[in-house]
C-alpha cells in the first residue's frame, strides 16, 4: 500500500528537545517551598517491628514530618499497572501498604522523613530508633514452599501466590505414544531494567484541595487510581501528571513511589515533596525481572515432530506480588502460536520469597520461557542429529492458526521468511560448514532462536485507548492521547498515523506529550507492546472522524459529495480529477468563523480493541569463546522481525538496538546478587551490576519482514518488547555450537563459564597447584 508518511523514517517529535536538554523530566520541575522525602529501609530480610521511635528524628531542625505505617491508612492495595477489573477474581493481589508493617526484604520501606533538604532528611533517618524481631527468611522459591517455611504474608501461608495453569490436548497420552521424550532444566537470573532516569515523583496538595502527583510513569491513569486506593481517597481527588520520561522498560508499569510521595506531602500539610530514588534504591525497592526455573518435558517423533510439551515453572516474585502470576501466565501463552503442539500442559507456580519485588519487565516472562524452550529445542536437535533450523521449520504453525485457549487467530506469520533472511544475512550454512570441529583456545559458533509475542493483552485484560484531535484555524491539528511516550517513539508514530489520514505534513501535527489525568484521554498506558497496535487504532479512528468532518464542510463549500473528495497535502481535492477544491485552512476557518454554521472540527473517541495480532522474529548470532578465560563475546548478531507494517523504520531499528543490547546483558553479564545468609543485595549499583557498556555491545543488525496484519492500524503489529526475547537462547546455542557445552542457566558470565568448562574438561586443572 502506498503511504506518504506511514512507513517513512520521519524524525522523532522529541528528538531536538531531548538532545538539546530542553525536555523537562520529573526532576526538572521545581515548586515553591519544596521539601525532600527519604526512606528508612529494613536491614533485615524478614523482621517484625516491635517498637519504632521517631521522636529524635522529628526533633531535628529542618525535619517537617516523620511517618511510619501507624500514621497511614491500613488499606492493602495492589501495585501492578493493569486496568481495573470489575471482576474481583481477576484483580491483582492486594498485599501492599504504603510503608511496611513488617519488613519482608532487605530494603523494605518502613519509615519516611520529610525535611527541608536531602542531607537533613538523611540525618534524620539515622535518628529513627527501630527495635526488630528478626524472623527466619527464604530466598529461593523451593525453600519458600517447604513445609514449615517462614510465612511472608499471612493470607498465603504456603507462600504460593498462585499455581493456576492451563492445558489442552492430552499431554500424558502424547508422552506415552512418542518415539522420544526429552527433558531439560533451565534457569534464569534476576535482572533490573536500569532505565537512565531514576524512579521519581513529587506530590503536593493543590489550591482546590486535590492531591497532584508528578511522576515518571508509564501508566498515569492507573497511578491515579492506585494512589487514590492506597490513600482511601475518591479517584477524582487525585491528579497525575507525566512529563518526559527517561525510560521505563516495565519498571514504571508499576506503582512504586507515588503513594508514598503523596503521603509525604499530606504529612507535610500539602507542601510539595520530592521523592526520588537513588540508583542503589532503584535496584532494591522498585521491581526486577522474575528469576525462573523451568522444567521442560517434550514428546517428539522420530522425524522430529513435536507432539506434546509439559512445562513446569517456578517463578520467584520476591516479597510482594506486584504483577505476580500474570507474568508466568503471559510466558505460557506466547510459544503456543509458534510451534504446533498437539498437547500443552503448562504448570506455573509464583512464589513469595524475601527478595526485592519482581514485576513487569520488557518481555513480561517471555525471555525466560523462550530461553528455556529455544535451548531445549537445540538440545533435542543435537540428540536427534537434526539441524536446529530444520527442527523448527518442521514444527511451525500456519496462518489461520487459532489458539485453543485465547481464541486469538494468527492472521500474519512471517517466521519462515525471517528465518530465511537471518540465515542469509549471517551466512549460516557457509559458516557452519567452515567451522567444523574446533579444539583451540578461541572458538567460534553459530546459534539461532525464535520467538512469538502478542500485541497488547487481549483477551486477558481490557484494551481501551482514547484519542482526541482538535483542528486549529490553519488546518494543523493537535492530538491528545492517554498513551505514554516513554522514549519508544509512540508520539511520533501516532502523529504519522494522523498525518497520513489527514494528508498533513508532520509539522502540522502536534502531540501533547505531557499527560495530565484531568485532561488526557483515558488509556491504560505503555506496556505489553500495545500502543502502536491498540492506541494506533484509536488514533486512526479519531483522525478519520476529523477527515469526515472536514469533507462535510468542504462539501458545503463546493457542492461536491464528501465521497467525491479526499485530503492530500493540506488540500481537499476532487478525487477523480486530482483537482484542488480548497485548502484545509479554508475548511478550518469556515469551521471556526462561519457566522451561521461555525463548529470547530474536533474528535474525541476511544477504541475498545478486542483483537490481537501475534508478532514474530528470529535471532541469528555468532559468538567468539575464549575458552581459557570463559569469556563469551558476540561477534555478529541479526534480529529479524515480523512486526507487520513498520510505521517508522528508524524508530523500529532503535527498538531493536535497545532490546538486543538489553538481551545480551541478560545472556552474558547481568544479574542481581544477594548474600545467601542475610539476603542483602551485593551489587545494587551500576559499577557492580554489569550492565554492558557501548564497548561491550557489538554492532546490532536489525532486519524486518513486513507482513500486513488486518487487525492493526495500517497493518502494524507489536515491536517494543520483541527484540529482547530471542537473543539469550541464540547466544547460548551458539556457545553450544562452539564448544559442545550446553549451558542451562543464564547469564553465561565468565565465572560460571569457567566452572562449567572445568567440569566438562575443557579447562584442565592447573599444572602447578598452589598451596
Amino acid at each position, binding site marked *: 500500500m502506498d503511504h506518504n508518511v506511514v512507513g517513512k523514517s520521519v524524525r522523532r517529535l522529541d528528538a531536538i528537545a531531548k538532545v538539546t536538554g530542553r525536555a523537562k523530566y520529573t526532576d526538572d520541575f521545581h515548586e515553591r517551598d519544596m521539601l525532600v522525602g527519604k526512606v528508612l529501609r529494613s536491614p533485615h530480610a524478614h523482621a517484625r517491628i516491635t517498637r519504632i521511635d521517631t521522636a529524635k528524628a522529628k526533633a531535628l531542625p529542618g525535619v517537617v514530618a516523620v511517618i511510619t505505617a501507624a500514621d497511614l491508612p491500613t488499606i492493602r492495595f495492589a501495585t501492578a499497572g493493569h486496568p481495573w477489573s470489575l471482576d474481583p477474581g481477576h484483580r491483582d493481589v492486594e498485599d501492599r501498604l504504603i510503608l511496611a508493617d513488617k519488613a519482608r526484604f532487605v530494603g523494605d520501606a518502613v519509615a519516611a522523613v520529610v525535611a527541608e533538604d536531602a*542531607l537533613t532528611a538523611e540525618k534524620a533517618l539515622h535518628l529513627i530508633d527501630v527495635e526488630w524481631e528478626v524472623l527466619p527468611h527464604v530466598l529461593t522459591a523451593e525453600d519458600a514452599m517447604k513445609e514449615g517455611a517462614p510465612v511472608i504474608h499471612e493470607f498465603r501461608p504456603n507462600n504460593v501466590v498462585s499455581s493456576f495453569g492451563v492445558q489442552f490436548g492430552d499431554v500424558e497420552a502424547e508422552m506415552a505414544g512418542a518415539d522420544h521424550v526429552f527433558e531439560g532444566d533451565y534457569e534464569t537470573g534476576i535482572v533490573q531494567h536500569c532505565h537512565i532516569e531514576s524512579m521519581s515523583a513529587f506530590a503536593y496538595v493543590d489550591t482546590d484541595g486535590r492531591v497532584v502527583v508528578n511522576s515518571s510513569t508509564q501508566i498515569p491513569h492507573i497511578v491515579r487510581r492506585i494512589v487514590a486506593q492506597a490513600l482511601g481517597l475518591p479517584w477524582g481527588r487525585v491528579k497525575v501528571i507525566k512529563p518526559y520520561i527517561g525510560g521505563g522498560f516495565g519498571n514504571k508499569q508499576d506503582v512504586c513511589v507515588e503513594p508514598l510521595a503523596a503521603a509525604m506531602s499530606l504529612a507535610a500539610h500539602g507542601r510539595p515533596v520530592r521523592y526520588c530514588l537513588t540508583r542503589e534504591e532503584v535496584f532494591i525497592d522498585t521491581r526486577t525481572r522474575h528469576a525462573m526455573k523451568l522444567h521442560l518435558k517434550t514428546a517428539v517423533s522420530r522425524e522430529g515432530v513435536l507432539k506434546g510439551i509439559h512445562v513446569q515453572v517456578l517463578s520467584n516474585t520476591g516479597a510482594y506480588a506486584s504483577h505476580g502470576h500474570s507474568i508466568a501466565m503471559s510466558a505460557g501463552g506466547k510459544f503456543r502460536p509458534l510451534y504446533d503442539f498437539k498437547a500443552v500442559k503448562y504448570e506455573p507456580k509464583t512464589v513469595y520469597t524475601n527478595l526485592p519485588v519482581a514485576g513487569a519487565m520488557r518481555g513480561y516472562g517471555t525471555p525466560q520461557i523462550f530461553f528455556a524452550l529455544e535451548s531445549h529445542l537445540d538440545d533435542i536437535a543435537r540428540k536427534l542429529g537434526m539441524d536446529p533450523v530444520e527442527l523448527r521449520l518442521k514444527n511451525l504453525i500456519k496462518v489461520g492458526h487459532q489458539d485453543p485457549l485465547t481464541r486469538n487467530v494468527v492472521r500474519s506469520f512471517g517466521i519462515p521468511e525471517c528465518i530465511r533472511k537471518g540465515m542469509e544475512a549471517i551466512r549460516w550454512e557457509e559458516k557452519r560448514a567452515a567451522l567444523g570441529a574446533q579444539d583451540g583456545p578461541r572458538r567460534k559458533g553459530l546459534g539461532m532462536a525464535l520467538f512469538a509475542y502478542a500485541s497488547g493483552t487481549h483477551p486477558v485484560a481490557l484494551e481501551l485507548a482514547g484519542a482526541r484531535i482538535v483542528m486549529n484555524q490553519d488546518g494543523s491539528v493537535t492530538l491528545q492521547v492517554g498513551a505514554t511516550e516513554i522514549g519508544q517513539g509512540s508520539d511520533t508514530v501516532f502523529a504519522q498515523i494522523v498525518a497520513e489520514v489527514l494528508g498533513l505534513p508532520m509539522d502540522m501535527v502536534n502531540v501533547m506529550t505531557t499527560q495530565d489525568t484531568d485532561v488526557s484521554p483515558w488509556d491504560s498506558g505503555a506496556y505489553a507492546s500495545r500502543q502502536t497496535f491498540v492506541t494506533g487504532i484509536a488514533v486512526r479512528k479519531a483522525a478519520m472522524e476529523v477527515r469526515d468532518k472536514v469533507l462535510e464542510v468542504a462539501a458545503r463549500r463546493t457542492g461536491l459529495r464528501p465521497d467525491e473528495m479526499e485530503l492530500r497535502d493540506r488540500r481537499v481535492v476532487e478525487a477523480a480529477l486530482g483537482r484542488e477544491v480548497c485548502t484545509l485552512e479554508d475548511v478550518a476557518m469556515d469551521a471556526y468563523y462561519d457566522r451561521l454554521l461555525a463548529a470547530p472540527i474536533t474528535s474525541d473517541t476511544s477504541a475498545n480493541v478486542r483483537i490481537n495480532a501475534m508478532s514474530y522474529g528470529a535471532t541469528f548470532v555468532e559468538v567468539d569463546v575464549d575458552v581459557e578465560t570463559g569469556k563469551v563475546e558476540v561477534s555478529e548478531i541479526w534480529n529479524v522481525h515480523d512486526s507487520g507494517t513498520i510505521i517508522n523504520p528508524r524508530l523500529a531499528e532503535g527498538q531493536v538496538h535497545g532490546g538486543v543490547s538489553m538481551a545480551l546483558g541478560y545472556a552474558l553479564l547481568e544479574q542481581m546478587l544477594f548474600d545467601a545468609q542475610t539476603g542483602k543485595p551485593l551489587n545494587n549499583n551500576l559499577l557492580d551490576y554489569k550492565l554492558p557498556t557501548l564497548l561491550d555491545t557489538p554492532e546490532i543488525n536489525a532486519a524486518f519482514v513486513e507482513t500486513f496484519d488486518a487487525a492493526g492500524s495500517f497493518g502494524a503489529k507489536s515491536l517494543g518488547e520483541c527484540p529482547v526475547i530471542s537473543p539469550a537462547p541464540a547466544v547460548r546455542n551458539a556457545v553450544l555450537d562452539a564448544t559442545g557445552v550446553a549451558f542451562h542457566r543464564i547469564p553465561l558470565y565468565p565465572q560460571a563459564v569457567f566452572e562449567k568448562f572445568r567440569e566438562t574438561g575443557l579447562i584442565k586443572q592447573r599444572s602447578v597447584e598452589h598451596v
Partner: protein
Amino acid sequence: MFDICELLEPATLREAKEMLKADPGLRVIAGGTDVLIRLQHGSLGGSSLLSLRRIKELEAIRLLGDGTLEVGAMAPFTRIFEDPLVRERCMILAEASVSMGGPQIRNVATIGGNICNGAVSADSASTLFALDALLKLETLDDERIIPIADFYAGPGKVNLRPGELLTAVLLPREGYEGAGGHYIKYAMRKAMDIATLGCAAVARVEEGRFLDLRIGLGVAAPVPIRCTEAEGWAKGREVSIETIREVAALAVKPSRARTSWRASKEYREHLIEVLVMRAVAEAVKRAGDCCAD
C-alpha cells in the same frame, strides 16, 4: 548534597602543605572519584576536604635529567594516556591509564588519588609495581622517596604519614628503558569496570633470553604484588612458550586470592596463570619490536 563541613582549595603546593600541617585531619581530595562516592555512601560524613584541584604544578609530566619520568600526582589519567613522553617511553602506563573507568572518569581521576586510595584493584598499581616506580611524599618540612611496594599497607590502607602529600610518581630509567610491557585489565566489561585481575608484565630481552622480567598483579592479594620467584626463574632463560608457561605457573605462588561474590579463588588463580602467560608473551613481542628500532 554532600555532608562536608568545609572545602579548602589552596592554589599552591606550599599552601596545601601548610593547611595540612595546621590540620592533619583534613581529608585530601584529588579528582574526587573515590572520595565523593564514599561521601555519598555516608562513610566520610562531616569531613573537611582539602582539594588539590587548583594546584597546577602537580599535574606536570616531565623527564628529569637522570632519565626519570616524573608524573605529577594530580595528573589525570586522560592526560597520562595522551602524554607524548609517557607514550614514547612507558606505553604500558598509557595502556593502564586508558583502562580506567570511562572518558569522564579519566578526565578527573588522578594517578595520585588512585594510589592513595589504596585499592588493590587500582588500575595504575600493577603497572607501577612492574615499572619499579617510586613515590615522592612531602610534608611542609620534609620529603621522602619510597618504592611503591612500601606504600601499600593493606586493603584501602597506605603508608601516608600525618601532614604528608603524595606529590609525584617517579619512574626511574632502569625501569622502562629498552623494555617491552603489556597490561591486561581483566574485567567483566570493557569499560567502566573494576579489575577482576590486573596483570602487568615488563620484559627486557637480549639474544633470545630474558634479561629482566617484572610482573605486577592487582587483586591477587590484599595489596598489589610482584611475582619475584617467577621473575627470578625467568632471568637468563630462553624466551619460549615453555619458559613463559612455567613463569605463569610460578606467578600464582605469591598470590593470596580469595573467594568473593565477584570471583572465586580458583577462578582468580586460573586467571593469573592465563593472563601472565598472555601479558608476558605480548611484553616479549613488544620488547623485540623495541630492540628492532
